[in-house]
């Protein structure tokens, strides 16, 4: 009986330890929650991938994001999307409207928006241009890019832990979110797209810091 009690204690401890490890001390239960927590604790550098888009000559994404004074709110989209990307587009439109008001006010912190398409073979610059026009995007505030090379697309998705799942009907499901990238091109925080005000305020706060 003593041995059984001893083994049970050991098993309970092992179970507790593995659950604590999996859930970051019982803070998160899903991979998405863990990703957001891990990004907040350890910012992720932008990987070395090439992007292009309407008004954006082919260049490394890091150069586009890390210009030294702009904080960027990034989202991942594909233009054929009829569901979550549309609401994400609406969120970005509202943020753009708020940023316009910022611009009108003096001394506003520089925050910009960037939509990255993960469907690079379909979403070439002319397609993105049409999509941007449909979204009433102001190129000074909200730009669109894609990765022409599928492998580098995969690399960026992996680094930023964006998981894209084909749903078998020609569409994709993906963990849509608002990603805040700081002036040095590091992904520093991931917000749910329902938390747009929080994401924008956080980006403004970052941009306002000396």
């Amino acid at each position: 009986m003593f041995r059984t009690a001893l083994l049970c204690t050991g098993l309970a401890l092992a179970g507790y330890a593995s659950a604590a490890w999996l859930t970051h001390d019982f803070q998160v239960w899903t991979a998405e929650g863990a990703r957001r927590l891990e990004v907040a604790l350890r910012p992720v550098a932008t990987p070395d991938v090439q992007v292009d888009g309407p008004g954006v000559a082919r260049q490394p994404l890091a150069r586009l994001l890390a210009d030294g004074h702009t904080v960027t709110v990034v989202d991942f989209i594909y233009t054929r999307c009829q569901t979550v990307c549309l609401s994400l587009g609406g969120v970005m439109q509202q943020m753009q409207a708020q940023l316009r008001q910022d611009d009108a006010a003096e001394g506003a912190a520089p925050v910009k928006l960037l939509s990255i398409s993960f469907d690079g073979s379909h979403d070439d610059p002319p397609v993105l241009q049409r999509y941007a026009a449909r979204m009433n995007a102001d190129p000074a505030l909200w730009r669109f890019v894609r990765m022409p090379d599928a492998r580098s697309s995969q690399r960026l998705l992996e680094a930023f832990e964006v998981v894209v799942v084909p749903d078998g009907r020609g569409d994709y499901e993906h963990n849509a979110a608002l990603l805040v990238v700081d002036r040095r091109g590091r992904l520093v925080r991931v917000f749910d797209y329902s938390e747009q005000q929080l994401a924008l305020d956080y980006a403004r706060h970052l941009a306002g810091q000396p």
Partner: protein
Amino acid sequence: MTMSPWLTRPRMAAAALTLLGLLALPLVRHALEAGMTTHMLVQFPLLALCGAMLAHALPACWRARCDRWNAYGVSGLLAAALVLAVLMIPRVLDLALVDARVEAAKWLALLACGAALRVSWRPAGLLVQGFFLGNVLPMTVVAGHLFQDTPVRLCNAYLLDDQVRLGQWLVGLAACVAAGWFAQVVRAMMRQGGAAALVTGPASPGSR
């Protein structure tokens, strides 16, 4: 478990290893892990079955050594309950797809879970079995309801309708196991006359 004369220990071990090898084939593994429902309700039980078959093939002297650490099957059922609880954390499914260490740990845990159930179920008797199921089944139902009701995807790698389907299956499965076990309890009590069956367990060797 009644043993057919041809189902000797080595044959059982060989069958278990064959099944394990099949499941480990990249083609089969990826096919089963492509869906949330097949991942959790086909691959998980098959791995546990391999574990149970391997435990069945253990020589009697090993079993006796195990039993000293497993009075009334308590350690084994606790281990199984813990494995099932940890594997119901949604992050495990996502992590198993991208992290080979987690995938390996998942396989070992499920083999151990099946083996533990095999060696512990009968020694446990109906009382301890009831305690085990009384913990595991409500946990399964709660997880199943969560999978059905949450409007967001709990696993980044799986689709929402797959998650809902898995939730329905988990609730249904828990209900079936509960009903099946209860039928067995009633049968044992009718055979042995009342509450004595609860402690001594079902007499018939044909039961699980």
